């Protein structure tokens, strides 16, 4: 059960003289929901960017499913089944929701002439099911850019599910979402994990959300890993409280 799917070992990343990540080591277990918290500027998003190959790391190793991926490019990593969503939501704004979904099919097996294929009925059906899953079915022919921010976030989540990833990295999934909707999203995250078997690795500032979903939480501060453990333990950890509230 406790088999690691993502393993980071001593990962460091610096932007010029600014060290964003210093020797970060962590593991995410297959099938789990793992949280990553930390004050603003503690290097969480940088770490996500390093994992998905958005920028090269200075040192260390990143393994996905036992395979070293720190030298691969973004697309190659995505095709392996390691996908991320963005903190500032990114969808294809001028296309309707359905097209947003249809182009998000997994590309790992795509061969050259698959570029000219038309969407198969079962793919269309799956896209509709997933849009229904996030509550956007009625809006499937609207331009994605005309949706509200919260709806765009849900669409981005549905697009990620369409890609059938093994692991999904979510960068602040509840940021900017209407508080009454957060419960719905929380429920969907849990269902995506339980029903589709997708491992989730989540950056989150909303403590109620992360404490209720994650089975294990890592806390970062100043680019370094500060603490790790189950939610109950993290909540009581003096170092975590100090990092968030400052020392007294």
């Amino acid at each position, binding site marked *: 059960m406790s088999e690691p799917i993502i393993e980071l070992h001593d990962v460091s990343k610096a932007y010029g003289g600014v060290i964003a990540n210093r020797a970060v080591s962590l593991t995410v277990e297959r099938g789990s929901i793992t949280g990553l918290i930390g004050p603003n500027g503690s290097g969480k998003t940088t770490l996500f960017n390093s994992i*998905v190959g958005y920028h090269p790391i200075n040192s260390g190793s990143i393994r996905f499913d036992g395979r070293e991926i720190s030298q691969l490019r*973004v*697309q190659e990593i*995505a*095709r392996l089944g390691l*996908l*991320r969503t*963005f903190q500032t939501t*990114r*969808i*294809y*704004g*001028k*296309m*309707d929701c*359905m*097209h947003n979904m*249809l*182009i*998000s099919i*997994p*590309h*790992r097996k*795509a061969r*050259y002439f*698959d*570029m*000219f*294929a*038309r*969407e198969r009925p079962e793919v269309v059906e799956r896209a509709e099911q997933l849009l229904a899953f*996030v*509550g*956007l*079915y*009625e*809006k499937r*022919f*609207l331009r994605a850019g*005309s949706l*509200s*921010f*919260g*709806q765009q976030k*849900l669409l981005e989540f549905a*697009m990620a599910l369409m*890609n059938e990833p093994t692991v999904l990295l979510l960068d602040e999934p509840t940021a900017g*979402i*209407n508080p009454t*909707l957060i419960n*719905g999203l929380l429920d969907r995250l849990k269902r995506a994990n339980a029903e589709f078997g997708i491992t989730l690795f989540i950056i989150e500032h909303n403590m109620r959300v992360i404490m209720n979903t994650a089975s294990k939480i890592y806390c970062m501060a100043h680019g370094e890993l500060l603490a790790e453990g189950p939610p109950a333990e993290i909540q009581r950890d003096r170092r975590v409280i100090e990092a968030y509230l400052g020392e007294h």
Partner: protein
Amino acid sequence: MTLFVRRNLPFLLIFAMGAVAPFLFPDISNEIAVLWLMILFASTWDILGGQMGYNSLGNIFFFGAGMYICAVVQIGLYYDVGMYTSGARTTHIVFTNAQYFTGFALGTLAGGVGAAVLAVAAGFILFGLRGPYFAIGTLGLAIAAAELISSWEWVGAASGISMPVFPGAPETQKLFFYFLLFALAFVLLIFLRWLYSTNFGIALNAIRDDEEKAEAMGLHTRRYKRTAWAISAAFLGVSGAIFANMTGFIEPRDIAFPTTTFNLYMVVMVLLGGKGTLWGPVVGAVIFHTLKEVTWTYFLGWQYVALGLLIVVTIVYFQQGVVGWLMEKYPRRFLPRGTQQPDQRAIGLAPQPEGAE
């Protein structure tokens, strides 16, 4: 049968008009032939510029490359190209019927394939550039090609190449090239309608909207970009080969690589008609070409002022183009297939479903 007619009505109309036009208006059949060329220019430019969001200012490079590749093949099959270009001014070289048509067919084919290969090669370098950098980079490609050919004696340098003479009466020649350009434009439009209905079309739009997102989702973005440019280049190369034989003479700066005329017209026609749509470039080409010919005929001396004014007005005030404007004005007529009679909810007036904000 009626369904077939209704679904393909624009194509049937174009086919009918294109087929009878040279017989109805024999005096301007050459101008109408050039109109088909303009439609080819606009529609191929739109593949990258409209659908994919990469504004190329160097697509004319593939038009000229197709011309020169065709000329070299057409002549080189039977004569030494260097001898031909240097001797063209003093001796009259004759091609037999069979030689002309074999050479023309093979040259056109080579022009199309060669241009596509050049597009893939150029794509390796230029697709690293984004936004205005891509536009300038591609413009450099076209200008460099013009300069290079201008100083290459083997292909006639700046004084160009006189193409083999068409073996037939001038009237036959006119119709022959008219129908070639018409057929090519017609095939392109049918091809594009199919292309934009496949995943390829959606992928190009995805790259236009957010290329970084497309990469993060695992799309083979480079493969799509290179293929799109190669398709565009192949059609331009073939049209260049045909146009070279139509005019009978090619030279680098004003005919093969005219960066300030044809090259800019492509962009203006697409903007005028509406970029990112199948029919926008066609509408733009028709309006632009008609205006151009009218000002040429009736306001000679002012034609460039009129064109310049049109370009400025289009770019500053009318970027969405005719078709884009129609889509804004009558959005219901442009809904995707299968949603022709949408209920109010699909338009977004209904109460929000639970779970969505």
